[in-house]
């Protein structure tokens, strides 16, 4: 295993995060905190409890998930798209690295960053919201697992995209709507039966539900369904990445 290469790529990516600290860390933390202020402190007091949880507290897991998903996808996709765009990918392709090493390094760096953002948002939430996490370890596990899965998804996206617009397309037009409709701001049980069933086709519902379960011991679906869904998504992404590197899709003519 080429440990030196993994370390070099990982450090390079983390250095990029440091260079763009405002945009990559401060912005997502700040913009999510605005939700806490508005929905939690300002409007939240006017809203009834949801599933026996104060509304301000209810939205915290979903909002962390929202940031985690968009940040993982955009960070990982940009990390691999940019070298393709400016040509420096030649160095990676000519290096003695296996595909799984490339994936470990890039996805590891992207996931590290989004977990960091997730934890920062959580810490910020404590300032505005009364929070009590029932299963902190499971919460952390879910955070990491989701960050890794969606960074992997972003990595695939960054290889598939052949322009900047496509790169933005999925996070903005797919991930964000699915997250908003995935029960960030409401419980699925509040919807009419038809919309409840339709919501169950949205994979993000399972992520948010599982994450919320780790906070409050309750979710829209069972924790095992959430876990199964997340692991299934991870497995699909791994298979696609393996195929990409075996065929050289969009990387090697």
């Amino acid at each position: 295993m080429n440990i030196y290469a993994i370390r070099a790529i990982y450090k390079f990516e983390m250095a990029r995060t440091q260079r763009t600290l405002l945009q990559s860390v401060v912005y997502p933390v700040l913009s999510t905190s605005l939700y806490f202020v508005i929905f939690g402190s300002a409007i939240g007091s006017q809203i009834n409890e949801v599933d026996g949880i104060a509304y301000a507290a209810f939205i915290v897991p979903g909002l962390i998930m929202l940031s985690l998903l968009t940040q993982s996808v955009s960070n990982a996709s940009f990390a691999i798209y940019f070298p393709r765009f400016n040509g420096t990918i030649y160095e990676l392709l000519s290096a003695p690295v296996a595909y799984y090493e490339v994936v470990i390094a890039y996805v590891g760096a992207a996931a590290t960053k989004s977990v960091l953002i997730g934890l920062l948002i959580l810490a910020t939430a404590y300032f505005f919201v009364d929070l009590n996490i029932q299963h902190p370890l499971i919460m952390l596990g879910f955070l990491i697992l989701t960050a890794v899965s969606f960074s992997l998804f972003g990595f695939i996206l960054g290889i598939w995209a052949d322009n900047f617009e496509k790169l933005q397309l999925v996070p903005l037009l797919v991930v964000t709507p699915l997250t908003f409709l995935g029960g960030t701001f409401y419980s699925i049980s509040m919807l009419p039966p038809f919309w409840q069933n339709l919501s169950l086709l949205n994979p993000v519902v399972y992520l948010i539900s599982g994450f919320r379960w780790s906070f409050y011991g309750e979710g829209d679906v069972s924790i095992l369904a959430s876990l199964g869904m997340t692991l299934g998504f991870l497995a699909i992404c791994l298979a696609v990445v393996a195929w990409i590197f075996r065929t050289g899709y969009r990387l090697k003519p």
Partner: protein
Amino acid sequence: MQEPANQVPPAIQIDSLSKTFAGGFEALKGVSLDVSKGEIFALLGPNGAGKTTLISIVCGLVNPSGGTVKVEGFDILSDYRETRSRVGLVPQELTTDAFATVFGTVRFSRGLFGKPHDDVYVEQVLRDLSLWEKRDSEVHMLSGGMKRRLLIAKAMVHEPDVLFLDEPTAGVDVELRRDMWNLVRRLRDRGVTIVLTTHYIEEAEEMADRVGVINNGELILVQEKNALMQRLGEKRLVLKLNERLDTIPPTLSEKYELSLSDGGETLTYVYDARGEHTGITGLLSDLRDANLHFTDLDTEQSSLEDIFVNLVEQQR
């Protein structure tokens, strides 16, 4: 093919290598080539001849369609770690990470190629390439020439045994060009094998031990540069004759290498300009004795360019 155990395998061993791109373009048509350890090999050819494709396959940037490539006895596909850690590539385009620092990006390359951290070595490479003063600059601040030096530093910092230079002097000023050739010679002295592509004949002439001429995806000539220079040493004396001549008189053709052209109006004599006796004086007096007169005379030197153009034209 298995190498005998007591024999050092060639640095690069290419066998019937072909590449057809997705669009159907045949960039390489069964190229075979051995490059020995420690030699400087120039791959010469016009744009689009297949030089970059050949290099890209050896380095792992392009998948081959057929044939095999070995680097120091290791297959580039099954033993890619072995081959790629031994190979360095300086690409044609100035592709660099804009916001990393010079030192950081060179250190990154060393790690990427599986070598342990060694800032002393990185410093040495930067000093060798006159980049040390710029070590803390961000890459986008560098001039084109400096970026070229940086790419060379990145390609060398993992101590490769084989270095590929793709069009190394494209857009490079005289000073850098001289520095670069000095560097190439120093590397060769250390036993590094160097393959460079160029469409400048002088470059191949100046640097290479051997020259391969590639055109339309085919390697049409591989020769020691000195043998090519031998051909270069040939000069031609061209005489415009007063009258049309049907055949060269045997008294002349026995003694001199002569040919007639332009319907018998031009007589050409080929001689070695570096020889002690060029035979020109003898030829001229023999011509007078044979009662042949001429209106004009000219000498021409055949250049590598002529040889190259001839070869390419013969192919058509």
